[in-house]
């Protein structure tokens, strides 16, 4: 059973098609990246998944069926539009929102206290929320997202407003949750975070799915025209099938001619008897793939 199954959802606001026949599945126990540039339709898709909006067409299954009030207690959501009740104390605010997630009063109090200690907020619990810094408020939001031990966590830009120390703490926390079998959907455009954390991803642009699958598969799919070589000695000036050679630190980047595969180059170098320390197919970074996909506007069927 998938944690989330999105099947051909579309949503139009006025004359703008926000989401256009988007489909993807999120498997249990993975960190899934939902990527796309600003205004691509990520937030609308999430809102449809969470039953805040109804789709014009298509359907969504979450935790094995339609959204119900019971299921809401098993979902943690950190929205892009961050918000907390500003005029009450942190402790009251967290307890209230934890109780809305179905925790009993004593349970909520205990969990909130434990989380506040972990996030270094315990000493600030009697302060009004509006008196806290942006980073602290962000941590408070993460507490609300995770306090009820949800099965499914959906987080929109989890690292914005966090310093490197807290960023690392949140990363560790997300991995920890995944290792406990929780499903995490991470919505972001910080590609290096996705590379570091996500197992699979979907990339949406102009409301349409552009890329979808395992991170490693996608990178391989976009690779193939560059090879990184670290020889023990010098490389010959000409290698068949290589259109250009660039120096790169202690090695070389070989730009392959059309129709040439990395395997053919390796075979050629071995046959020439050139001793190699390292031979690597240069996989493009997700950043590069992102820019390439977003600027070329190709659609994945």
């Amino acid at each position, binding site marked *: 059973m998938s944690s989330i199954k999105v099947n051909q959802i579309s949503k139009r606001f006025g004359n703008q098609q926000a989401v256009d026949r988007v489909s993807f599945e999120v498997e249990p126990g993975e960190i899934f990246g939902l990527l796309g540039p600003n205004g691509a339709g990520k937030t609308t898709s999430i809102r449809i998944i*969470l039953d*805040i909006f109804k789709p014009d067409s298509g359907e969504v299954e979450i935790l094995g069926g339609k959204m119900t*009030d019971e299921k*809401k207690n098993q979902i943690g959501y950190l929205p892009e539009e961050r*918000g*907390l009740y500003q005029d009450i104390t942190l402790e009251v605010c967290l307890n209230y929102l934890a109780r809305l997630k179905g925790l009993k009063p004593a349970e909520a109090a205990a969990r909130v206290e434990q989380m506040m200690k972990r996030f270094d907020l315990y000493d600030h619990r009697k302060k009004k929320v509006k008196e806290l810094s942006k980073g602290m408020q962000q941590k408070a939001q993460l507490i609300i997202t995770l306090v009820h031990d949800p099965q499914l966590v959906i987080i929109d830009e989890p690292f914005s407003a966090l310093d490197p120390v807290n960023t690392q703490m949140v990363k560790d926390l997300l991995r920890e949750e995944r290792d406990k079998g929780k499903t995490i959907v991470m919505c972001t455009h910080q590609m290096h975070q996705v590379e570091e954390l996500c197992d699979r991803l979907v990339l949406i642009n102009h409301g349409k799915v552009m890329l979808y699958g395992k991170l490693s598969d996608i990178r391989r799919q976009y690779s193939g025209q560059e090879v990184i070589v670290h020889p023990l000695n010098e490389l010959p000036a000409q290698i068949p099938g290589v259109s250009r050679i660039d120096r790169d630190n202690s090695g070389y980047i070989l730009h392959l001619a059309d129709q040439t595969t990395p395997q053919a180059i390796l075979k050629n170098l071995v046959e020439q008897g050139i001793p190699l320390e390292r031979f690597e197919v240069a996989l493009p970074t997700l950043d590069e793939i992102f820019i390439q996909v977003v600027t070329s506007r190709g659609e994945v069927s």
Partner: protein
Amino acid sequence: MNKFWIVFSHEYLRHVKRKRFILGLISIPLFMAVIMGVSILAAALSEDNRPVGFIDQSGLFKDAQPQPAKRSGLFVTHVKIVPFANETEARNALDDGEIQAFYIIQPDYYATGNVKMIAQDSVDSDIHRDFSEYLLAHLLKNENPTIRTRILEGPELVLRTFDSDQQFNSRNPFGFLIAIFSGVIFMLAVNTSGGYLLQAVVEEKENRTMEVVLTSLSTDQFMAGKIFGNLSVGLTQLLFWLLMAGVAALFALRAFPDLRDVGIGFSFFSLMALTFLPAFVMIAALMTMVGSTATESREAQQIAGLFSLPIAIPFWFIAAIMENPNGPLAIGFSFFPFTAPMTLPLRSMLTNLPAWQVGLSIGILILAAAASIWLASRAFRLGMLRYGKKLTLAEILRPR
């Protein structure tokens, strides 16, 4: 616990526990008590309790005995009535300030009832009444006591209408004042609740907490919790003030025994409850609607004024309603949901309301309340996720 109750108690306690609320709650009754105290004190201090004298030129009241006080109450005092042998003596007493006035019972009193009064300042009408009762009591002293009492007290007139058991006591205009007083308290409570509700909804929007909340419980549960939580704040205020008014009324009954005859009963209070409650819900729902459509609290408050203002309109036309409680204006106000809660109880104190008018008025109010809730929940659903963008009425009404 149902999530509705979590929202309800959070909203309720948030306001009720605040110092500002408690101060507001206490300050109004305190203010009224001070005003009442000061005016009673002023009246008591300005009252002239010096005796009045009389000279009997008719010879009818030679051995008149002072009569026992009939009216009683904390603030009711009877001045002494003292006889004088002649006008000069009485004149001297008046000049010396021992008495405030004296009456001269003319020789032809039996035939004409002529009495002259001499005073330096105007004399309270109660003293005239006491004096004439004094004379009457003496003339009737040999009469059968039952007949004597009947003549002295006069008839007790009760007006009764044909088609209902409503009755008007001839002696008391206080019922009308109570209707006005309840109306004012209602208006204050509506404003408090409405204001809190408006703030609570706009705040949700300004704080951008809606998405987290909507993924925790349903919109209906959330909205209902918010509306009833904030409504209860106003109701708490209303009940506390009514309780205080009850205490004040007990005190007033001791002080002014005449009030005991006020013709206010169960039917008046049920009429009040039946008009106030739907009106309360209607205003609350409209405030929620305004809160969800506006983008910031200042803007919302300006629009909200448009709803709370019409409630007070009947007070501007109170003279016209009193003069003609069955006129087209009064009847029109009774059928308009904003003005009905003020008009209907007021009219019930002035006239006999036909049952169909009461039924229609309450029916319209309940319909208006239901329609407002419907509008509010649509506006809430559509408007709450629109940060920094207004929602128009056309958008709320447009079918989806």
